[in-house]
């Protein structure tokens, strides 16, 4: 029997949830506010919250100086491409681990995850040399491959967790009705795991969008995504905080909008199977 929640308790919980939410969102809000300030107001002490002369000048300067469209397009291709490729590879891998596990399945899963523990800089030179040899330096294709490989363990783990929640009997029934392996995965398993796959896609798009080590180190002018766009406004010798904030706001806006509109799917996917 569910416990009764008093209105006071509900109000406290709501207020606490809002407080935590605002606390987490505050750095983003501050970045957005700073982007509308002048450089002098941006460094004012004490800081000015809302009572300042709002200006769009920083956005104008950023748009004039940088080819935002190209950076954005590169980010879309790299984040989308790496996620899509990862899903195509991870769905069959997670299916086999969830429904036809071997003695070593758990070890393989742990090993896959352990690759995430290696500091990226430790393999920078080998990967860089490989990229030179294969002509992949400063190409979107090269970054799609690298980011797919980096995020593949997470994709496989997430899908494996979702697939484990799906009763194996349903797949057995499909097999008894004559479904081939391909039909079983595409027509039975995948539709049932749509919330899980959707949240995996969203999470990996976010991870790939924000990835700033490989995207900075393996690109120059042609394939550089929005992480390089932000980095171009950071300076240890000069106060360009307002312009940096404008560039950051422009870089995170697409992913914030995507997250806002898909929050329902994201939450339902992340809590999939959490309550039985």
């Amino acid at each position, binding site marked *: 029997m569910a416990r009764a929640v008093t209105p006071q308790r509900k109000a406290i919980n709501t207020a606490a949830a809002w407080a935590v939410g605002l606390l987490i969102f505050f750095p983003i809000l501050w970045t957005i506010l700073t982007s509308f300030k002048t*450089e*002098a107001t941006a*460094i*004012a*002490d004490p800081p000015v919250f809302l009572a300042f002369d709002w200006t769009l000048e920083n956005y104008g300067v950023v748009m004039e*100086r940088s080819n935002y469209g190209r950076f954005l397009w590169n980010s879309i291709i790299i984040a989308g491409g790496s996620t899509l490729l990862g899903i195509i590879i991870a769905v069959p891998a997670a299916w086999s681990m969830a429904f036809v596990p071997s003695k070593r399945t758990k070890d393989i899963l742990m090993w896959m995850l352990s690759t995430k523990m290696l500091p990226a800089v430790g393999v*920078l*030179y080998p990967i*860089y*040399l490989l*990229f*030179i040899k294969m002509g992949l*330096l*400063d190409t979107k294709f090269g970054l799609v491959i690298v980011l797919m490989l980096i995020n593949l363990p997470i994709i496989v783990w997430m899908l494996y967790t979702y697939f484990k929640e799906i009763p194996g009997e349903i797949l057995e029934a499909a097999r008894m009705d004559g479904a081939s392996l391909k039909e079983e995965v595409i027509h039975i398993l995948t539709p049932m795991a749509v919330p899980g796959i959707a949240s995996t896609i969203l999470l990996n798009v976010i991870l790939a969008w924000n990835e700033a080590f490989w995207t*900075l*180190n393996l690109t*120059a*002018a*042609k394939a*550089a995504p929005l992480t*390089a766009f932000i*980095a*171009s*406004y*950071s*300076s*240890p*010798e*000069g*106060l*360009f905080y307002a312009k940096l904030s404008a560039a950051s706001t422009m870089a995170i806006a697409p992913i914030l909008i995507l997250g806002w509109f898909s929050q329902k799917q994201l939450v339902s996917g992340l809590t999939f199977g959490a309550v039985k």
Partner: protein
Amino acid sequence: MSLKNALRAATALTVLTTSATFAETLTIATVNNGDMIRMQGLTDDFTAKTGHEVEWVTLEENVLRQRVTTDISTKGGAFDIMTIGMYETPIWGANGWLVPLDNLSEDYDVADILPAMAGGLSHDGTLYAAPFYGESSMIMYRTDLMEKAGLEMPDAPSWEFIRDAAAAMTDRENEINGICLRGKAGWGEGGALITAMSNSFGARWFDMDWNAQFDTEAWANTLNFYKGMMDASGPAGYATNGFNENLSLFQQGKCGMWIDATVAASFVTNPNDSTVADSVGFALAPDNGLGKRANWLWAWALAIPAGTQKQDAALQFIEWATSKDYIELVAAKEGWANVPPGARISLYENPNYQEVPFAQMTLDSILSADPNNSTVEPSPYVGVQFAAIPEFAGIATEVSQEFSAAYAGQQTVEEALEKAQALTNDAMEAAGYR
């Protein structure tokens, strides 16, 4: 069509075809500093003159350093021109990673480059990078606060004067700190300041056998003086302040004095950004009567990596960007105060530039720094605020972390120096110097 017209048309067509055939697209890696951004905005002038297009890769200084080091050491060829500093140039030149700039045109007038800059950007007498702008460090101070304290800043003050003036100018109630200095960990941040300062106290990083010298009295004097003065007259949390934090404090009127890069002079005197623009004076970095001042020497320079396939076009760009004509171009478009400073002798002979309030002090500061003879006692390295050896960046970053911990009160100065001595000797032994 007459024969004459036909010939004219054919010639024009040939010129157009030739320039189209040889027109290249150069990829240039650079930092996000004001002068570099200005250069990006003027690139059309270069394209109009040569037909070559330019693609810019602008990165934060530390990211750029890592990015270009990876590329040049693997001969990746991602960039046709790199913006590098005085620290990397002689090391990379010695490694054969850079194209020697020994065939610059006569019009370029290579003899016009300030000797201190040319020397710091050369290896074995060969120039490997052309200075885009050069800088030293100097004292920027509030003339109104100095007057209020009843003091007059000499052109070449001593550390003792600076300490006493800082104490006299400090007004905690009104949030005015007598002096703001870098304390942030990092070889190019607090590490640069304390190394330049140590030179004036008679300290050095290594003796002639590459033994660390942090166990000497000169280093103890340097750190104790710095910490004593900053604890008494510096801003709260100075151990984490770098260039930008101090610039912000100074522009808001919260520093009586600030010893830092000469390029900051144009920021603090710009009324759009600085609340104290009309009351800033300049003086040489302090000394201790030992013959060395506490100012550094640095240049952001343009170099051609050995891996590029577009050497000729890259050289054309470097000649354009570091030429006398480029300085004239910037002056015409943005005024003389905004031209890239510290690279050419002729700039300081120009009467228009002599009217810029910080021009002469910048030149004097640059001229008083000698990268080949930066310490009181002899040292085996080149460089004022660094030692031009590949291991220095890593070692100095660790050493400056120990120093910052001492500034923050997490350990004593003696402990910090002991750790610095041990880690430096260990690293130098591992690298085969000892």
